[in-house]
């Protein structure tokens, strides 16, 4: 892997990163605002997918309830804004802390199980979060909660400015990926990946597997909570629908598209998924009919997702 840094995979990653960085320039030059809003959304979901990849790809934990963190991060912002606390310096730490706390509790309970049971229990907890928020009548209940004013950061940055908000999201994405990269290659990351590979072996050489799993689960949830705070600001709205299990499923699909256990894979996967959704839905409202088989093809014939295919191209 070290032999050449210039290969198909790295070229694609570099081009995508460059493209994302320059997108607002393109948007300003052409006056195409739509593409900027579309990609703002893509970047936020890419951050959520990257956080899911940390536990799914590296940790082997198939969480089917990751949308819950998007909702919790979002509701933290929404509820505080509703109650008159508009400062992002309060909203965002609360969003992260609430997500971390939720991950800690859910993780401590779910990680007693493995495999299908783990998938089911994380799904069940996320659905519980969905129903709980549906019952928050003060905050809109089923209908959701409109956020009339985006988070303020004391004049440092204006989230209502499309370009500034875009770059904030992009910085969060790149920062998140850098953080995940450091974690994956750290001592902690080695243990987490070792436990994914062979839990029994890791116990035998002296690791308490679940402690590492749980911490990894909390880190992932916290990062996704940040994505939730961004998403709420992007849509100026939070609703229980955003925590529904289909949303969790979409996040999983994004990760699988791009390539589980590949650092940049979730970004590529999210771009492909959301662009396809955007394109296909212009032709037909039954776009999922095309997306479904496509996912099947990727799972069957392109193991390791798009990044896996690019990696294989690089080796030839």
């Amino acid at each position, binding site marked *: 892997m070290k032999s050449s840094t210039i290969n198909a995979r790295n070229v694609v990653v570099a081009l995508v990163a460059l493209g994302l960085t320059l997108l607002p320039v393109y948007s300003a030059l052409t006056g195409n605002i739509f593409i900027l809003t579309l990609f703002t959304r893509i970047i936020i979901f890419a951050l959520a997918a990257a956080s899911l990849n940390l536990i799914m790809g590296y940790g082997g934990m198939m969480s089917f309830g990751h949308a819950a963190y998007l909702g919790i991060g979002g509701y933290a912002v929404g509820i505080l804004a509703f109650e008159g606390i508009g400062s992002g310096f309060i909203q965002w730490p609360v969003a992260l802390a609430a997500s971390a706390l939720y991950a800690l509790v859910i993780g401590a309970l779910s990680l007693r199980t493995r495999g299908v049971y783990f998938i089911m229990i994380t799904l069940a907890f996320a659905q519980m979060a969905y129903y709980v928020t549906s019952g928050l009548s003060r905050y809109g209940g089923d209908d959701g909660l409109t956020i009339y004013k985006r988070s303020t950061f004391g004049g440092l940055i204006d989230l209502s400015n499309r370009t500034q908000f875009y770059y904030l999201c992009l910085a969060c994405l790149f920062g998140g990926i850098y953080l995940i990269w450091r974690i994956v290659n750290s001592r902690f990351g080695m243990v987490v990946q070792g436990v994914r590979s062979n839990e029994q072996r890791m116990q035998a*050489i002296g690791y308490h597997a679940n402690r590492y799993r749980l911490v990894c689960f909390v880190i992932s949830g916290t990062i996704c909570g940040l994505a939730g705070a961004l998403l709420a600001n992007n849509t100026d709205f939070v609703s229980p629908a955003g925590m529904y299990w289909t949303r969790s499923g979409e996040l999983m699909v994004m990760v699988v598209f791009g390539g589980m256990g590949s650092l940049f894979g979730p970004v590529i996967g999210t771009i492909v998924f959301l662009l396809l959704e955007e394109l296909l839905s212009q032709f037909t409202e039954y776009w999922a009919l095309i997306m479904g088989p496509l996912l099947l093809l990727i799972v069957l014939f392109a193991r390791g997702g798009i990044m896996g295919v690019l990696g294989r191209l690089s080796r030839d």
Partner: protein
Amino acid sequence: MTDSAGVPLLRVENLIRSFGGIKATDNLSLDVLPGELHAIIGPNGAGKTTLISQLTGQLMPNSGAIHFAGRDVTAVPAYQRSRLGLARSFQITSLLRDFTAIDNVAIAAQAHDGHSFRFWGAARKEKHLRDAAQAALTRVGLGQRANVLVSELSHGEQRELELAVALATKPQLLLLDEPMAGLGVTESARMVALLKELRKEVTIVLVEHDMEAVFALADRITVLVYGRVIASGDPDAIRNNEEVKRAYLGDQHAVTRHG
């Protein structure tokens, strides 16, 4: 069995473990003295692996006690026993298949070098871990294969890697569950030579079907049948034990051949 020779490193007392109606470990007692290589043999189904799993803490006994290095470890979980200096190899190779050989060993070394809740520094760049891992690999003859993925190592190499992983945890007691399983003649000979070297430094409990290897290596042999100890003593005593001969009727040739 304890005499003036010293306090046993491992003491198993009246261990019982049953699965349903079957007693896989039946009131088993056993001492392992520091520095010895203690072999445990017995026909298939004698409960050897069940015993090893209880010694390492992967399986909890129904009753009885296990003392290790002067401490009652009966209720201590597997990962903590490893920290106390108890290492094992697995009968069926159990490695991190999607990691390289050196990663496997370095992760084992890391488990015994401070804590692993470090999230920032690159683990593969920690020189003392890599050096320790490389040394353990060289030790078992895999020095040149450090950067090969486990899934691409031969079966024999994987068996050797099992040993390197166990060694990297700097054990006081090494529990080897059939290290020769599935090895060819030359590979077995290499493994025996390796164990002969290792036994000079570390106390070993060896579970093995290969009688040639057992009689070549062991200071003491304990024979299990149906979870019970039917004989325990030095290789000569075991070789001439009538009850052992009977238990090993089919393998009698193997038991008596060497002498």
